[in-house]
């Protein structure tokens, strides 16, 4: 299998984006630091590290399906290698960004910036190594899950024909914006009560430990991975134009 070669290819198509992203983050940190210095100790908060990299992974996943499938299949690489290379790269990339993000947040705090991650807001009581490791792990798997979700979305669009693309592009946002609120209003009270109980209890469970959050992300990653594999396993090389 040429997993290593595909991994390298994904990396070669990503590192400029990564440099740009962290360059922008560094510029923001320096800007915040400059403001603090010149304002004589103002309050500057930035939490871009927490979810910006997950959004980046989502976008990467969307792009990777078509780009990787076209390139891989046209260069003697099988679908399973294209897929495994992507999954491994996403996991490694997510781990790398999680570590950089933690270091970035520490650096930010040392510079006097308020750089608090979402996980630290959810788990403010964690002050030991195992807890902190759980937070980092939840970020790694969270980023991976977002990347695989993006890959699934990219794959779904890649496999759809033009008519289905239009239908899905209109109906999914419409359902989310109008359909869900209507459903909540129209649903019988027993259903809304059950849903109302389910969400708070799930959030309570997640708030107990970052390892619970990691498990949730892992479930999402596995689900997106399975659906993505179903999309790629018979995918042809499709080139627009």
């Amino acid at each position, binding site marked *: 299998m040429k997993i290593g070669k595909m991994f390298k290819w994904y990396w070669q198509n990503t590192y400029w984006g990564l440099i740009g992203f962290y360059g922008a983050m560094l510029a923001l940190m320096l800007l915040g630091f400059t403001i603090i210095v010149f304002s004589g100790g103002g309050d500057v908060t930035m939490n871009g590290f927490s979810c910006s990299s997950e959004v980046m992974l989502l976008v990467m996943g969307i792009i990777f399906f078509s*780009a990787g499938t076209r390139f891989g*299949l046209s260069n003697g690489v099988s679908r399973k290698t294209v897929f495994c290379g992507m999954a491994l790269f996403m996991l490694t990339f997510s781990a790398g960004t999680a570590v950089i993000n933690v270091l970035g947040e520490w650096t930010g705090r040392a510079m006097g910036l308020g750089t608090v991650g979402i996980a630290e807001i959810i788990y403010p009581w964690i002050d030991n190594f195992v807890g902190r490791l759980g937070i980092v792990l939840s970020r790694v798997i969270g980023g991976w899950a977002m990347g695989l979700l993006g890959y699934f979305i990219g794959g779904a669009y890649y496999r759809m024909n033009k008519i289905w693309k239009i239908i899905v592009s209109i109906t999914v946002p419409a359902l989310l914006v109008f359909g869900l609120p209507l459903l909540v209003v129209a649903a019988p009270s027993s259903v809304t009560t059950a849903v109302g109980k389910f969400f708070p209890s799930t959030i309570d469970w997640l708030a107990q430990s970052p390892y619970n959050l990691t498990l949730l992300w892992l479930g999402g990653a596995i689900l997106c991975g399975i659906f993505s594999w179903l999309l790629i396993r018979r995918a042809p090389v499709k080139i627009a134009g």
Partner: protein
Amino acid sequence: MHNSIEAKGLTVQFGTVTALDQVDISFGENRIYGLLGRNGAGKSTLLNVMGNRLYPTQGSVSIDGEPGAENDKAQGKIYYMGEKNVCPDGTTVRQLFRWSRDFYPAFDMEYANQLAAQFGLNTKKKLKGLSTGYLTIAKLIAALASNASYVFFDEPVLGLDANHREMFYRELIHRYSERPSTIIISTHLIEEIADIVEQVVIIKEGKILLDRPAEEVKRMGYMVSGKASEVDAFCAGKQILGEDQLGGLKSVCLLGEPENVPATLEIAALDLQKLFVQLTNA
């Protein structure tokens, strides 16, 4: 060990359209094949299935005795040069060569750079910024330098001017004589490849119509030319493939072997394009 690509019972359906219909074909070691067919005949579909770029509805492909589908090792022996660009938008020519080297370890970088200079191709340019002709040249160079055991050229001279086409054909023969491999050229420019190909495969409506050595194909018929009235008299009752007339002179392509040809008429080998047109028109 069978050094060939063997397709057995290949069927590809796109909705109600059957692009390939129970195709059985073998592409042997170190030969140049001309894969000919009209638009939509199934040439690209056949190449795409053999190159694992498309899944067949039915049938299988083996490469040197190994299953071809989803097999990295077997597929690594095939280099597919298609019409469209498969690299991401920002890819430069140099990057295309580097990636080709990554995925095809026998890729000859020195030869690729030498060819780029010969064709006047700037390797620092992005593929997206190249003209159709130069994009084709970049892909041709990568294919020639790949040193893969099987190289598929799907419309290899798209957008190339006559000079560059000549250069490509010359380079192809030169490379083939130095490092033989199995080359499959799918093209509509039959006359241009007529003298290069060793085996002719004609595909029509998803079925293999003809699969014979080029020399044998040329001997399937002959061309007779001379005064129109004499040519007409000679051709009466014979199987005519096609004819051309210029003033009082006429040339006619006929099926079969030349027999009892009057001394006033000239005989020449059969034109592959005329044979193709005749076979695929019927």
